[in-house]
């Protein structure tokens, strides 16, 4: 086999607004739980047929870091990742790749990725994810506030020797 572990960055993509929207939905799906995604699907009430292009499966991604945080990349350990790929009746193809081993959740995420590309459902998907977005933001804010309470405030002691 030819060596192929190139560390080159992905090719520069044209700024496609749909790519950014899909990435935002994918990020929410990755951070949410199965219950969250089921609630989103319930809210959408999508009843079209969904075809599995690839049965959901769990595998590994080798996670990379950078030496010194900003130097050359190195491999520092693997993570479990589950992926799925579906196609809607209307033709849109949806993908999911997310940490963990939840195959049901990955399949729902793939359906949502396909739906966000659909002209009729796209905006609805984003609206239906508002509760999840709000919950995650609230949790993050609580974590940040708790962390902030452990920030050290130094006091400078002035002694009177220079009088």
């Amino acid at each position, binding site marked *: *086999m*030819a*060596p*192929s572990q190139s560390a080159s960055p992905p090719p520069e993509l044209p700024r496609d607004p749909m790519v950014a929207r899909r990435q935002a939905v994918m990020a929410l799906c990755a951070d949410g739980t199965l219950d969250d995604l089921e609630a989103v699907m319930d809210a959408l009430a999508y009843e079209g047929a969904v075809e599995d*292009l*690839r*049965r959901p499966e769990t595998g590994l991604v080798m996670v990379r870091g950078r030496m010194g945080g900003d130097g050359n990349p190195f491999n520092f350990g693997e993570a479990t990742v589950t992926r799925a790929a579906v*196609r809607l009746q209307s033709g849109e*193809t949806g993908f999911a790749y997310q940490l963990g081993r939840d195959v049901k959740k990955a399949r729902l995420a793939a359906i949502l990725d396909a739906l966000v590309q659909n002209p009729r459902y796209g905006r609805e998907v984003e609206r239906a994810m508002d509760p999840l977005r709000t919950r995650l933001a609230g949790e993050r804010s609580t974590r940040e506030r708790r962390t902030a309470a452990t920030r050290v405030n130094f006091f400078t002691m002035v002694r009177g020797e220079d009088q």
Partner: protein
Amino acid sequence: MTALAHGFGDPVTDAQQVFHAAMNALARPGRPQPLTSGLEPPRPMTPELAAIALALADHEAPIWLDPALAAASGAADFLRFHTGAAVVADPGRAAFALIADPGMPLPVEQFALGTAEFPDRSTTLVIAVEDLSDTNGWVLRGPGIADRQSLLAAPWPHALADIVRLNSAVFPRGLDVLLAAPGRIVGLPRSTRFVEEI
């Protein structure tokens, strides 16, 4: 990617069967091995080329396509989706080269030929042909062949003479070849020699 063709129906078993056929083909050079492929890849990719690619290529094994496949709509997307492999333009980066048109010459010296230390880091060429038989053909000798093995491919791949010449010059570096006809494949590892008689 509007009409992506399906991959293996049963990914594990199907890939194992293809792997088994490819392994036997390379272990018994020139002797046709049965290979059933239920795939319907975008033309002109043949079902056998697709089956070998889906069984053997992955994200660490990039694929090079011959001009006929590179020009075909959907062929690269089909391979990217089902294998995760990159489709590369530089033959030297390819772990596998898929050749749908055996009548064209190939840039044989530009493929990865391996290194003296790692001769296995070379490109494996998978060439589609219309028919393969082991009666009345070129006589092959070499490891994996008890005495002699006869091979006839139709059409005879244009690049094969160049590949054989190259292999004898750079051994143990070199190129391994799989010929894929409907329902059968033949392996021609770099150690196989062609004897000048019919």
